[in-house]
């Protein structure tokens, strides 16, 4: 005798809404946290996820996933797998552990918030599984990162990064706090599960696993792709929420997606972009960041959005242009400001890499080639001081990343243009028109300063470079330095001089 099929009884599990009598509905589901907005309260009764799971199935499947992920880790512990990894790839993992582990912790809180304030019982139930999943991701990421702490103190930042005011952390906190627990449940379901988890996390957790495997990091590839199997399920909280929101308030639906699509794209350009196009050794790259973006975001995710009746975001052209610029500039910024990082940044511009970059990005030589060459010449002549920063990059008031996006203007030049605005007597600068527009539209970030602004307002003491590094939590044993001991620079002295390869 078999058990009843899930379809026969799951409807009852979700039939748990009742009419509140002793307290007001608004007191139990306050707008601040639930966020129904223009959507009639009873419209949420239609909410139904299409990727269904029951409690007994959940614990059975998750136990299998956990056993298999830790079995791989335990088998590799005794191997020399870690020691044989390229230093650049290790940096990609340090960036991942530090940038991701505690975000998973934040996502646990976010799912708990939907489990409490979500507007339909089916949604609240699904968020319980989401909260457990995110607890899993926090713990597995921390445990896997912890494995390497004794070998390399930079792995300490797997845990430490989000407890500091490193500029990378401030940028990520700013993104994720707004996307996740800082948002009401409706916005959050659009921002986190839908835009972020069915869109962008695929890049860092599935696409990057292709590079990880090629780079020989089986353990990491296995961990991230296992994590993403949970995301594929619980991210389906987004679809039904979006469907209802599109029906009742399409403007809000479009805006919410557009905003977090843009901000996610900025963050991924800073982390995933360099990991794929610079940190993964060139011979192990499965595709370029741009190609992965085309596969997962432009193709797959945009099809999802049109399937729900949404349009392309207003900034589409600027976003597409940015695919050839954002992450290259950010990689140069990460490298140049390397003492501010908890990993060893990779220049990634030896001869073979430059050839690859120019194949994948026809404008790369024009925009970046000679700058790297100037840096390399300084390295080759022993002038290391010229390769180190003596001031701060300006940080965007919206994404908190360096304002470093050149574009090809009507003046026929590749230039970084200034996007700023004045508000209440303050001047704010942005990396792009997109960031400026988003900041202006909801001004959520008023009174929320960038690290540069904090420095200028005197909040960082002493007001000098050691003061800034101290504020960011960096200690000398952790501060980033070139991953490959500058060996790549010598390739510039052997290859053609500036100008001959460029101009395409």
């Amino acid at each position, binding site marked *: 005798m078999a058990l009843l099929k899930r379809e026969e009884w799951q409807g009852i599990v979700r039939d748990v809404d009742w009419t509140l009598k002793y307290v007001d509905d608004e007191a139990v589901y306050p707008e601040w946290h639930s966020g129904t907005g223009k959507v009639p309260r009873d419209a949420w009764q239609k909410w139904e996820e299409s990727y269904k799971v029951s409690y007994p199935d959940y614990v059975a499947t998750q136990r299998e996933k956990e056993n298999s992920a830790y079995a791989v880790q335990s088998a590799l512990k005794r191997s020399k797998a870690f020691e044989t990894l390229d230093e650049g790839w290790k940096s990609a993992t340090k960036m991942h552990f530090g940038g991701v582990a505690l975000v998973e912790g934040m996502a646990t809180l976010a799912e708990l918030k939907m489990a409490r304030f979500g507007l339909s019982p089916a949604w609240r139930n699904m968020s319980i599984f989401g909260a457990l999943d995110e607890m899993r991701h926090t713990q597995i990421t921390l445990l896997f990162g912890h494995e390497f702490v004794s070998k390399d103190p930079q792995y300490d930042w797997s845990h430490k990064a989000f407890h500091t005011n490193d500029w990378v952390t401030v940028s990520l906190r700013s993104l994720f706090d707004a996307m996740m627990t800082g948002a009401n449940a409706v916005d959050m379901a659009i921002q986190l599960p839908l835009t972020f988890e069915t869109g962008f996390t695929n890049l860092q957790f599935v696409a990057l696993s292709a590079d990880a495997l090629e780079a020989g990091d089986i353990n990491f590839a296995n961990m991230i792709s296992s994590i993403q199997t949970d995301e594929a399920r619980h991210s389906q909280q987004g679809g039904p929420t979006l469907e209802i929101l599109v029906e009742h308030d399409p403007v809000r639906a479009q805006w919410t997606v557009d905003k977090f699509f843009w901000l996610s794209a900025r963050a991924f350009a800073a982390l995933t972009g360099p990991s794929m196009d610079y940190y993964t050794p060139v011979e192990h790259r499965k595709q370029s960041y741009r190609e992965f973006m085309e596969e997962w975001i432009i193709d797959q995710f945009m099809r999802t959005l049109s399937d729900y009746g949404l349009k392309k975001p207003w900034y589409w052209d600027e976003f597409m242009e940015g695919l050839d610029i954002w992450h290259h500039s950010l990689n140069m910024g990460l490298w140049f400001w390397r003492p501010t990082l908890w990993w060893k940044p990779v220049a990634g511009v030896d001869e073979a890499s430059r050839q690859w970059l120019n194949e994948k990005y026809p404008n790369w030589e024009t925009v970046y080639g000679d*700058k790297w060459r100037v840096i390399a010449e300084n390295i080759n002549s022993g002038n290391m001081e010229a390769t180190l920063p003596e001031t701060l990059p300006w940080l965007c008031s919206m994404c908190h990343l360096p*304002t470093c996006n050149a574009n090809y203007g009507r003046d026929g030049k590749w230039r970084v243009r200034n996007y700023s605005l004045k508000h209440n007597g303050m001047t704010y600068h942005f990396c792009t028109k997109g960031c400026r527009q988003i900041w202006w539209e909801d001004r959520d970030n008023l009174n929320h300063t960038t690290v540069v602004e904090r420095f200028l307002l005197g909040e960082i003491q002493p007001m000098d470079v050691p003061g800034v590094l101290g504020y960011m939590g960096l200690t000398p044993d952790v501060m980033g330095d070139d991953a490959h001991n500058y060996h790549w620079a010598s390739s510039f002295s052997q290859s053609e001089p500036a100008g001959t390869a460029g101009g395409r």
Partner: protein
Amino acid sequence: MTETAEATETAAEPQLVPVNAIFADDFVEILVAITTADTIAEVAGKVAYHVEGKRVRARDAEKVVYHNDRALTPDLTVAEAGIAPFDHIRVDYADA
């Protein structure tokens, strides 16, 4: 632009003016600390210091400072030019 007596009188104590600056075709805007007493030529030098020969190949050409899309005369001071804290300035080679 005409010289004004008031400007020199009030500029007794130079004030720090942090600005958002970009040099030529460099890849990033940077924070540069200038003062009200700096001349525009000095400003060009202070911005170039962080970039020229470090990321942007040094060239033997005059440098021009742009503020609100206008080229500034090199012998003006920052105070006279009206550059305020948090303003954006662009420094480029004259023939670029």
